Structures are given as structure tokens and as C-alpha cells.
């Protein structure tokens, strides 16, 4: 399916004959291999979730968090190459502190998304560096309300009500589109996000060790980026698993007919 970019895909500083920069597109492929990562912007907050396949039984559970805080009112996750993600998070924290140093104001979602978008884009200009192999989801809650931005390896970013990245993202996106995103509350969003992850990842996570991180910024968390309270996570995952079983039962019933 992918076109062969012979000769035109060796560096970021080369266009292909049909006007594409293959290195950037290849970087996006790196993102597609990541575990499913979802962001949903609700009426009163934003929810981020990322599913991680645990690749070794020796890893300490819950010790390797992918979703990071960038100042108290911003949450950020970079599905894709983990080390690239950490470099981006470090930069975002620097940008946020720098903004606060100058204006004594926490940086807004729009501005941090722009700064990160410009930063990512800079790495698509030169043959001496490679583009970042991760998308970046930024969730914020500031004066204009909750906002969710996603930056892809080309530096392009948009504001979203809901977005999905990584394995099975198309199915996840289809599920997210079905939600009433303008009316949903952050609590409801957590439930829906869990349900979507479980239904979409069902085959991948069966019989495998996995971990799903959920964080949010909402009124309930005092507009601070925190992990979703464990009781809500438990409730959401329980309901998600139950709805999976219901689907299985429905499938069985269909077979009988």
C-alpha cells in the first residue's frame, strides 16, 4: 500500500516527485505502531488515556507513566517512540515555565500547542535531524475552558473534541464520533473511553499483560491535571468488561438463530 520512495526518502530535506516528504510520513508510521491512545474533550474537562502492552513481567506495574504533567493545568501524552516523547515533554515543560516567567500567567492550551507544533516542525527541515516519531496530545483547562490539541510528526496540529492515535485508531475514531461530545461530562467521558479502549483492543489485549493509564483535567479535579481517581477507573473498566461480555452474548444469540 505504501509507495516506494526510492531516493526521495533518505532525508527530511528532500521532497518527492509528488510533493511529499517521506521521512515525515515514515515518522507517522512509527506512531501507528503505538498502543491505542485516546483523548476526549468533554463539557467540563478533558480525559486522556493510553493503553500500554507490558512487554516484560519484570517491569514494576504502574511505574512507567506515559502521560505527563506540564505545569498544573496541562496534561500531555506522546504515543509513538517513547524516548522522543520524553524529549517533547521536557521541551513543553520548559516552554510553559518560560511563558510563566515572562507573563506570570499559566500558558494557555492554544499557545502551548502552537509552541510544540513549531518545535516539532523544526525537526522536519534539516537532513541532520530526524522528525519526532510520536504524535502529541495536549489537554488543558484554562480561561477559555477545556481544550484538546493533537500535534503530528509534521508539526501540524488541530484542536479536537476527540482523537485517537495508534493501533486500531480508525475503529476508535468511529466510536468516538458516535459520542455526544458537546454534552458529555468528564465522568461520562472516562466511562466511554474505557469502553472504547476495551472494545477496540479486545483481541490485542486478550491473554497479554497490559496497563491503561487514565488522566483528566476537569472541574472535579480543580482544573489540575491528575490521574483519574482509582474508584472511577475501576467502575469504568468493570462496565467496559461487562459491555464486552454483553456483546459476546449478543454474538452467541445471533449464532443460535
Amino acid at each position: 500500500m505504501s509507495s516506494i520512495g526510492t531516493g526521495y526518502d533518505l532525508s527530511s530535506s528532500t521532497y518527492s516527485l509528488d510533493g511529499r516528504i517521506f521521512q515525515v510520513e515514515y515518522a507517522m508510521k512509527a506512531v501507528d505502531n503505538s498502543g491505542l491512545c485516546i483523548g476526549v474533550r468533554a463539557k467540563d474537562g478533558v480525559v486522556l488515556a493510553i493503553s500500554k502492552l507490558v512487554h516484560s513481567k519484570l517491569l514494576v506495574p504502574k511505574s512507567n507513566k506515559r502521560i505527563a504533567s506540564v505545569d498544573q493545568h496541562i496534561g500531555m501524552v506522546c504515543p509513538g517512540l517513547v524516548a522522543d516523547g520524553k524529549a517533547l515533554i521536557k521541551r513543553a515543560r520548559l516552554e510553559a515555565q518560560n511563558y510563566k516567567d515572562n507573563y506570570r500567567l499559566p500558558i494557555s492550551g492554544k499557545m502551548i500547542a502552537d509552541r510544540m507544533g513549531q518545535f516539532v516542525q523544526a525537526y522536519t527541515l534539516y537532513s541532520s535531524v530526524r522528525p519526532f516519531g510520536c504524535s502529541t496530545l495536549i489537554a488543558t483547562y484554562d480561561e477559555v475552558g477545556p481544550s484538546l490539541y493533537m500535534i503530528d510528526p509534521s508539526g501540524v496540529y488541530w484542536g479536537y473534541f476527540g482523537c485517537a492515535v495508534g493501533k486500531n485508531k480508525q475503529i476508535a475514531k468511529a466510536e468516538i464520533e458516535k459520542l455526544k461530545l458537546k454534552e458529555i461530562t468528564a465522568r461520562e467521558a472516562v466511562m466511554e473511553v474505557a469502553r472504547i479502549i476495551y472494545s477496540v483492543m479486545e483481541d490485542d489485549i486478550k491473554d497479554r499483560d497490559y496497563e491503561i493509564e487514565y488522566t483528566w483535567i476537569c472541574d472535579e479535579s480543580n482544573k489540575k491535571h491528575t490521574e483519574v481517581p482509582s474508584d472511577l477507573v475501576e467502575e469504568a473498566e468493570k462496565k467496559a468488561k461487562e459491555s464486552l461480555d454483553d456483546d459476546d452474548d449478543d454474538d452467541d444469540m445471533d449464532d443460535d438463530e
Partner: protein
Amino acid sequence: MNYPNPFADAIDYQRMEQHYDQEALDSLNAISPMTRTQQPIVTGTSVLAVKYKDGIMMTTDCLASYGSLARFRNVERMLKVGDSTIIGASGDISDFQYITYLMDKLMTKEYNANNGQPLAPENIYEYLSQVMYQRRNKFDPLWNALVVGGFQDGKSFLGYVNLRGTTYQSETIATGYGAYIAQPLLRNAVEKRNGEPLTEEEAKKLLDDCMRVLFYRDARSLNKLQRATVTAAGVNISEPYSLETEWAFAENIRGYGA
């Protein structure tokens, strides 16, 4: 600005001394040490603090003086840092505002690091002590005397650090005039208890009585105080309040009343 050219043959030292003070002359002369002396401009006076049964209690007045002028009379000289620490500041207020900025930066970094446990009062105290001493070594001090007080994991903490980087910890701490006038009163009250901690009411009365004496005797104080406590329930900084004072004796004094 017209600096004199030290290499010029004819320098009128007489005239130069009229324009420049010793500081500037020293810096022109390469043999003298580099100095960056300072003076505090807008200042706060005493900070008092004691340990009591439930944690620690700290009091400051709400005045920022401009020399002898009582310039800003609604100033909060105590700062909450996290849920278990407060910092009380005397000395230069602009330096205290910079310390407030450093604390915000510190707490943001800690929040991002998501370390599981918050910074304890001892940690914040050590950080401030390092900053104060390093600035002193650069001859560019933050012109403050700070009291760091907190309560975490069932233990009270009370520490002092100043512009020279001198530190100490004690059951009672007082800065400024408080160190001369209030400290003996605080120590008397606490040390004769033989380890039995003050109750909240006793601590309140003790600090209020000391602040009352300070208002009588310290010419750079104000009768508008704030009291802060740090306990297991967290940090609480009160609204400003005033003390009852007795000035009727002045009526009998020639020049003041009679």
C-alpha cells in the same frame, strides 16, 4: 553615563570623588575586590513562630515599610508552599517576592515529577538555605530573614535562615526586633513547660502578647496582624486582625497629652 577614563593622564580625583561613592571608586580600581553591596528598600519587620500541640503557629504584621514610612499596610508576609509548609519573611519585600516566584517554580517542577510524596518542610528549608548561602557567597544576598514552618507525618518543623545563610532550628523563632523583645518571652513560656506542648489557645495568647509588646516598642510595626497555623489539617492563614492596646498613659505625659 560619563565614566572617568582611568587611563587618562589628568584625572581630577577631587572632582571624581564628588560624583562617585566608595563603591564605584573601588570597582574602577582593579586592585580592590568586586563588591555588589545592597540595601533593603521596602521592608517587613518581625516574624514570630512557635511549635505547639497540633503543629506550628506563625505571626507577622501586615506592614511593608519604606524606611520610616508605613507605606503598604495590607501586605501578606507569610506564604503557603504546598499543603504542609509556610514561609514567613522579614527584610526586603522585593526579595521575598522573588522567593515566592522560586517557590512556585519549585512546586511546579515537583508536581510535574509526580514523585508520590510532596516536598516536606525540611526539604523546602534546605532548598532555601542553599539559595541564601550561595547568594551570600556571590556578594548578592537576598536581604531577608526567613522562618520556615511546617507539619508533616505527625512532626512539626520550625527553621530560620537569613541573608548570610545562617540557619538554625528551634521550638521558638523570632526575627528582627522580635529576636530581642519577643524571643525571651517565647522561650520563657515554652521552656518552663518541660516538654509539654502549648495548646492552641496558649500559643495564640503567647504570640498575640508578644506582637502587642512589639507594636508598643518597634517603631516599624503595625497593629494589623495575621496568624497562620500548620497542622495535620493543612495550612491556614487567617484574615488580618488587630490587638487591643493601652495608650491612655500618654495622656499624662507632657508633650503627648498634658
